[in-house]
């Protein structure tokens, strides 16, 4: 128990009497039914954009790694010509893989973020609002998507500056944005699901490290599936990152892709991720 004395009333600073609070006297009408989910998703995405507007440091620092991948790895392997790319320069082949990778790295931090929000009380406060847990997770997943799309724009610009022949067809670019959002939604939910299991930031950091590299190297981001050993091909088949990269390559470079399958897999993966993360969210609230 504290012994802190109460200060006299007159010592109050910056006091404003609520003379004009008519709006605060009536509760807003509840949104119900199907309109609730898009409203919550929009609210949480808006927060992500507002934060990025106030502080763009993360946007710039996160651009460094993909730039290095394209600049060093991409340019070197383009000269070596060791990886079969179906006739396109290796750096072109690599660019969609790096877009998917940088989006995944952003999304995989959402589990750490949700644990931080739990520790800071932000999560509890949101859970006490009329927001179903699935809507909160969906909102977070799409917020990760919004952030990843902004990151993807940065990588596309870097790739274009390095001479990668990308499409500028607006419809295909819209498709790219949709794929990046779906992929990030899945990876952020994967991360939030693990957060709901391990419950501590330190343990989650270990898991994050342990899964991101296998997901990246066990995909077609750097090399085609055909040249992988059989066991790695099996990993790649169940790895949503491979489907994301396949779609991005098809849309950005016009290489043969399985767009319907890719979209299908990513939609199902995102939906399963949202369901898993939502069901474990209650553990974080305890």
């Amino acid at each position, binding site marked *: 128990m504290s012994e802190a004395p109460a200060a006299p009333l007159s010592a109050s600073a910056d006091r404003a009497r609520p003379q004009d609070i008519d709006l605060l006297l009536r509760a807003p009408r509840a949104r119900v039914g199907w309109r609730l989910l898009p409203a919550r998703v929009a609210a949480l995405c808006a927060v992500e954009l507002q934060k990025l507007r106030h502080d763009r440091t993360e946007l710039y620092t996160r651009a460094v790694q993909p730039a290095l991948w394209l600049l060093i790895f991409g340019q070197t392997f383009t000269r070596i010509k060791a990886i079969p790319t179906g006739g396109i320069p290796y750096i072109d082949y690599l660019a969609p893989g790096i877009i998917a990778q940088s989006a995944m790295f952003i999304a995989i931090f959402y589990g750490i973020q949700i644990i931080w929000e739990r520790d800071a009380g932000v999560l509890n406060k949101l859970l006490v609002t009329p927001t179903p847990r699935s809507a909160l997770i969906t909102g977070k997943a799409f917020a990760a998507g919004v952030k990843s799309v902004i990151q993807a724009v940065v990588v596309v610009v870097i790739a274009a500056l390095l001479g990668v022949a990308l499409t500028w067809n607006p419809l295909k670019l819209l498709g790219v944005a949709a794929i990046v959002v779906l992929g990030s939604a899945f990876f952020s939910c994967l991360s939030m699901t693990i957060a709901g299991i391990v419950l501590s930031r330190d343990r989650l950091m270990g898991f994050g490290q342990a899964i991101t590299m296998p997901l990246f190297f066990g995909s077609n981001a750097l090399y085609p599936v055909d040249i992988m050993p059989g066991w790695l091909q099996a990993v790649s088949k169940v790895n949503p990152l491979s489907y994301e990269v396949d779609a991005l390559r098809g849309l950005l470079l016009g290489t043969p892709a399985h767009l319907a399958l890719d979209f299908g897999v990513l939609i199902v993966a995102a939906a399963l991720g949202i369901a898993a993360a939502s069901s474990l969210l209650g553990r974080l*609230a305890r």
Partner: protein
Amino acid sequence: MTTDSTADAVACTGLAYAFGDTKAVDGLDLTVREGEVFGLLGPNGAGKTTAIRCVTTLLPVPSGMVRVFGHDAAGDRMAVRRLLGYVPQQLSADSGLTGRENVSLFARVFDVPRRERAARVGQALGAVGLTDAADRLAGTYSGGMVRRLELAQALVSAPRLLILDEPTIGLDPIARTGVWEHITAVREATGMTVLVTTHYMDEADQYCDRVGLMHRGRIRALGTPAELRQGLGERRRAEGAPATAPLPTLEDVFREVAGSGLDEQAGDFRDVRSTRRTAQRVG
């Protein structure tokens, strides 16, 4: 939404909640009447925060019954949440957003329509004296200002029950008074019910209409601060204390109720770490 207008703001009956073998709340019976400021007092580990978390629907209600304005906190969670404004113990405003954006997020998640959102957010910020600082990042606010911002976040949805968990922890006396004055002023203007937990007996004495002293998971004494102090004074005189003895304080009442052993059960590691972190961030 239909809400029983005759129901108490909060009614807990036989509420029990255990973390493993530790009974955090052990058969709590508690009624908070509509319109009052009710203080739930007790040391760390007394079960206050667990009880509050059951009322706010954050925790399930494994045993007993919790009703908020007649709505079952276990079964009708969304209806209960629409009636609540909640300020957790930690400093929970987002430091990467401005004050206005922080409040606006809560206006959005409580379905305030777009056409009145800006005005309502402005009124909530005005009610806590943050109009001038509204467009600064919350990360630049002082501890007292962050608390008032959180109050604005809770007020923007016009809650009927405002729940504050240790609202003044770690604040200097002037900031504490500032926070309480805003709570009191808003309560007077809106008639909302306030349920507050605190360690500070002096605050409870000054600002709460009724208090419940909680210890080892149950309410051990209940009444207005004056009733509790007078009751102890009378008991002491009956036991032979001189009439000239100083009047007991609420803290004396608490010591009598909780008895010895307060220090041994002062919360677990996570409680203490969280409290210290909050104190560090506001200080």
